[in-house]
């Protein structure tokens, strides 16, 4: 041994068992930070990929610029890909073989790298007489590869092109808006076409590592461009951190930062309290070091080095575990939501998370050892030689044995007597609750962001004429398919002249059935929905503020030149169908609707499918309408995608909450275990004097309960405002949902804390009971 600090590894080996908990705490801290950053990395990858698929991988679009400016932008070292992008919408009247088309002209690199499209058959046009078209045109108008087709302009002129390739139909919306087939050509070919009403822009993708706002400022100044000439891909820039200001993504980053800080504070408290107990157990050892001449500074250095020494094994273990967890979560996300997360690597390693976890792990340990190091340095040399080191000096007040039974009084006193310890323990409990509450806002965020409303249809069949023209027997036929979960129709009577309380106005009368009445119940302000469902001539009125109507009021409707009176049985605060300004909305039962209007057919039928439904099932429904007269609106894949996204996000959020609960449980168990271990000798004395095992357990429960109850109170005091802050910035600001006390997560976490505290007493109590009193008294 060449240096006194070489004692650290020797001491660590001997005290391996005592330091186990501290090492686990460090591992957990690193694990949590690494998983958090790893998942954030994955989430960002998913969101970025999704955003690119939505609008393309471009950062800025320049309009009305000359070729010189374009070449200046292209020549900048920060420009990765750039090029002209010319589009002609389907409304311009261009067609091939009678099929209306849109046109998109750009270089191949822009087509592939910026708009992320690909030619699935053939090749990209290379000359001005070549085009590639949507693959759907192959079937609809029988176009084959290398065929020469004529492109008709709206003025009747024709240009011949050779079809050299087919492109994927599903990806074309990034090139031109709308879902008509598309023809793709080179800018030179487009120039030859001479299009007057084309939309021309110069699109640019910059390098990820440059500061795009600065570059844009430079381009704007040097080329004298106006703000109107530049359009940024704000969502993508925002995700890539290239934009300042209050965007949704910024708020997510803010939230992530706040959560990271809370995670760090939790870990600091955990490690600190674990190390404090560790130091307390070795008071005599530190006293002995002081006896032998170690200075306070040397003791502090010793404890600090011990913390860092434990990091040697704890940090790599935490990182390895985090990588495994991230791999498992990535795999789960890829399986659940291949559309968004298929780009994610199977065995990817997030270097950002590794670096962040090492740095934050070390910082956490260094901050956490400050207090125990000071405590160790304060140990007087006398402690080493006075047998009961630290046992007597720390109490200032005696326990209150009058208000409580002796064991309860002592348990409470044990918890409360040492202020620093009480603050650390209660603080750690409170931070766990705060952490859970703040993270639980992500569930609300997730529900708001990804869960479609209950009433969202996956397929809507609407009357082309907006009348009650859909035969109601078709609804029954639809319902008979076992892949249909719910099918329901609505009958509409538009702009019905109405009079109530002496006021005349127009109203839309809409029929509802059981399901729709059920969903409307959430917005019921007064009255009863059952009355409307069961009795004729009863309606639900949607509040707009224009007309003052109360439950029980009579309303006169003029339908088919007949005047009929209905009664308001209920008032709804809002409805997704009440969106026409100046027109009131009434809902009634189908029976009432038929009685009032004489109509029996539906204006619209909405369908919700079973979970495993496919486009084939949609096709089956479509085939039920061979005579047309209806418009189909298929949102199945969109809703399924949204649901998948919800499930993916749910894995992340619930995964995180589980980790937090696991940390809370572990921390409580650890804390109580260490508390018992530290007082082993004292408990032995009490048992010798006559404290029964049952009383001993009660005493430990009282101590644990004191921490838990105080922790829960402080958790509410700190956690609820934190929940409010995160909720407002993440949910209220985006969706407008007002904050309310999160009773369910609050009750859940308090129950977990209390139950775990109770459970945590079991093991140490059993350990004490297994020991003879003599072993107990002589325990170190």
């Amino acid at each position, binding site marked *: 041994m060449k240096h006194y600090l070489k004692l650290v590894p020797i001491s660590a080996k001997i005290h391996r068992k005592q330091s186990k908990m501290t090492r686990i705490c460090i591992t957990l801290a690193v694990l949590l930070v690494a998983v958090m950053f790893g998942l954030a990395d994955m989430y960002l990858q998913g969101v970025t990929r999704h955003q690119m698929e939505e609008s393309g991988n471009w950062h800025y679009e320049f309009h009305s610029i000359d070729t010189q400016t374009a070449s200046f932008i292209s020549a900048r070292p920060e420009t990765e890909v750039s090029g002209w992008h010319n589009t002609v919408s389907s409304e311009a009247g261009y067609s091939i073989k009678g099929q209306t088309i849109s046109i998109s002209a750009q270089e191949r690199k822009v087509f592939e790298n910026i708009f992320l499209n690909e030619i699935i058959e053939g090749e990209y046009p290379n000359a001005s007489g070549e085009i590639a078209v949507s693959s759907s045109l192959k079937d609809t108008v029988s176009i084959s590869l290398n065929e020469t087709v004529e492109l008709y302009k709206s003025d009747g002129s024709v240009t011949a092109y050779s079809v050299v390739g087919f492109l994927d139909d599903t990806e074309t919306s990034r090139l031109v808006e709308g879902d008509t087939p598309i023809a793709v050509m080179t800018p030179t070919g487009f120039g030859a076409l001479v299009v007057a009403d084309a939309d021309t822009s110069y699109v640019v993708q910059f390098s990820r590592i440059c500061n795009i706002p600065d570059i844009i400022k430079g381009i704007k100044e040097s080329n004298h461009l106006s703000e109107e000439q530049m359009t940024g891909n704000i969502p993508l820039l925002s995700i890539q951190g290239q934009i300042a200001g209050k965007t949704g993504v910024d708020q997510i980053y803010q939230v992530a930062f706040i959560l990271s800080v809370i995670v760090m504070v939790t870990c600091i408290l955990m490690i600190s309290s674990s190390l404090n107990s560790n130091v307390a157990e070795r008071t005599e050892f530190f006293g002995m070091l002081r006896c032998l001449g170690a200075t306070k500074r040397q003791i502090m250095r010793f404890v600090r080095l011990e913390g860092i020494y434990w990091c040697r094994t704890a940090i790599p273990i935490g990182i390895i575990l985090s990588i495994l967890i991230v791999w498992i979560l990535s795999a789960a996300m890829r399986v659940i939501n291949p559309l968004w997360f298929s780009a994610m690597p199977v065995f990817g390693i997030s270097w950002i998370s590794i670096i962040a976890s090492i740095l934050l792990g070390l910082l956490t340990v260094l901050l956490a050892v400050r207090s125990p190091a000071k405590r160790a340095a304060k140990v007087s040399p006398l402690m080493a030689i006075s047998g009961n080191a630290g046992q007597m000096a720390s*109490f200032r007040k005696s326990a209150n044995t009058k208000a409580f039974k002796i064991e309860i009084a002592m348990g409470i006193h044990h918890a409360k007597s040492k202020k620093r310890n009480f603050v650390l323990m209660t603080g750690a409990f409170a931070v766990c609750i705060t952490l859970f509450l703040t993270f639980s806002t992500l569930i609300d965020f997730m529900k708001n962001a990804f869960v479609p409303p209950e009433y969202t249809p996956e397929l809507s069949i609407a009357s082309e004429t907006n009348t009650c023209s859909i035969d109601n027997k078709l609804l029954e036929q639809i319902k008979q398919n076992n892949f249909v979960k719910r099918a329901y129709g609505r009958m509409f009577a538009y702009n019905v002249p109405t009079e109530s309380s002496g006021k005349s106005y127009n109203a839309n009368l809409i029929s509802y059935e059981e399901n729709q009445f059920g969903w409307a119940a959430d917005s019921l302000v007064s009255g009863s929905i059952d009355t409307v469902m069961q009795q004729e001539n009863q309606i639900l009125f949607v509040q707009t503020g224009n007309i003052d109507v109360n439950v029980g009021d009579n309303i006169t409707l003029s339908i088919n030149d007949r005047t009929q009176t209905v009664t308001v049985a209920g008032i709804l605060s809002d409805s997704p169908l009440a969106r026409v300004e100046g027109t009131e909305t009434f809902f009634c039962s189908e029976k009432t609707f038929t009685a009032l209007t004489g109509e029996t057919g539906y204006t619209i039928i909405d369908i919700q499918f079973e979970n495993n439904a496919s486009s084939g099932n949609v096709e089956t429904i479509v085939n039920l309408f061979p005579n047309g007269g209806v418009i189909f609106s298929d949102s199945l894949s969109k809703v399924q995608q949204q649901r998948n996204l919800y499930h993916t996000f749910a894995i992340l959020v619930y995964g995180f909450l589980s980790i937090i609960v696991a940390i809370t449980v572990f921390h409580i168990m650890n804390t109580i275990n260490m508390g018992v271990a530290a007082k082993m000798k004292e408990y032995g004395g009490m048992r010798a004097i006559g404290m029964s095992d049952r009383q001993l357990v009660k005493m430990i429960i009282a101590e644990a309960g004191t921490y838990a109850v105080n922790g829960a109170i402080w958790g509410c005091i700190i956690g609820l405002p934190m929940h409010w802050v995160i909720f407002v910035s993440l949910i209220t600001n985006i969706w407008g949902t007002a904050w309310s006390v999160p009773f369910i997560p609050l009750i859940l976490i308090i129950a977990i804390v209390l139950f775990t505290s109770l459970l945590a007493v079991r093991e140490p109590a059993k350990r004490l009971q297994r020991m003879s009193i003599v072993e107990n008294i002589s325990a170190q």
Partner: protein
Amino acid sequence: MEILRVENLCKTYGKGEAEVNALKNVSFSLEKGEFAAVVGESGSGKSTLLNCIGALDMPTSGSIFIDRQNLLSMKEEKRTIFRRRNIGFIFQSFQLVAELDVEQNIMFPLLLDYRKPEPDRVDEILSLLGLTERRHHLPSQLSGGQQQRVAIGRALITQPKLILADEPTGNLDSKNSHDVIDMLTSASKRFQQTILMITHNNNLTALVDRVFHVSDGVLTDLGGRANETLS
């Protein structure tokens, strides 16, 4: 009247080659009000004997009767309750509860029994031990001698039939040692309590009724007032 009877008590630690017989067939009995001392060298088995009698440790074999009740046949909970009502302990290292003041420490066995301490009785003990002025002091505010007096008070409060004292003067100077022994003697006389005390101090054996010697786990009864015999 016989208060304590120990029959063929054996205590063995370890197994095989590491086996140590700490007590070998120890048998003796003590009458009511008798004050006995156990002497012997370190590691001879004195503390083991006391721990077994106080049911702090379980013997390997043998029987212990306190007030004719077989201590070892009782269930754990019952034995604990029996111990706190019938046996008082005094330890060398006092074993006071740090968070309780002098008065509360003395009342501790009664509080554990959910009994309300009689104020007169507490006052009597405090005055007997000279701790009336310090009744609300915490153990950390007391000297070693005072702490041991509190431990004696705690052993006396339940008026146990048997007091077991493990080197009660081991941590005290000679004046405090004499004071403690005087208190134990007067308690023994005044309350007719049986006391079994381990000591290293041969001078103290002059003050007791009977002396036992333990050597290699074997107990020998040296009879009464044994200072001559010991010397």
